[in-house]
């Protein structure tokens, strides 16, 4: 996410919005945004309703066995059609902004 913030101007120049989605409540997201200087929105899905709808739930992987989102990235076109998707097989390996920018070309 830090790397997406660094490359955000390139997404903006292409007219692409970037958002993060997690189970964190808005106050945690507010703090994170402040701390890390994120200028794109962090959306809050505490009951994992949307996370389930996208089938990117990682059951029991959070604190005290809470359900959280697994890392996953979707690139949508202006009609909301999925253009590119990344479902990692390793929690530590996430999409890099250059991969998404390349998918845009």
């Amino acid at each position, binding site marked *: 996410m830090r790397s997406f913030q660094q490359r955000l101007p390139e*997404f903006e120049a292409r007219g692409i919005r970037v958002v993060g989605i997690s189970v964190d409540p808005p106050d945690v997201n*507010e703090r994170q945004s402040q701390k890390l200087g994120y200028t794109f929105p962090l959306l809050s899905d505490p009951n994992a309703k949307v996370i389930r709808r996208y089938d990117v739930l990682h059951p029991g992987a959070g604190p005290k066995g809470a359900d959280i989102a697994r890392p996953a*990235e979707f690139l949508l076109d202006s009609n909301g059609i999925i253009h590119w998707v990344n479902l990692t097989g390793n929690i530590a390996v996430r999409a890099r902004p250059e991969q998404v920018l390349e998918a845009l070309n």
Partner: protein
Amino acid sequence: MKRRWNWALWLGFIFVAAGFITYPFFVLFPVTRDFPWANLLLFGTGGILLVLGLARAFGRPQVYHGKIFGPILAVLTLLAFTLFGYGVFYELRQMPASAGAPRVGEKAPEFSLPDQNGKPVALADLLSGSRGAVLIFYRGHW
């Protein structure tokens, strides 16, 4: 004759310990996170030095120290490396299949969620007046 200090054993163990405890640091950077080569390099260097130290301790015990500490450090090294390997090459790869996730060419499910200021943001808002959107699902900071 006074026996010499077996520095290779201790230096080796310092490398191994560094390989283990620097994981939270190297994981911050994609270059060292996607594949933990920096940690493996530290483990490898430490392992070579430990083997050298053990060879000295047992091969020339009249010259070098280390017949007691050598095996202890070697066991600790094996434990650290096993734990690291289990975490990085097994535990981190226990991911759900996400077989029902929307695929390329399908329409992304609609949603509306509050942003960090509590203001609702719908997918339709993100797409109106833009040329597309990147949705980044992440584990969160809790």
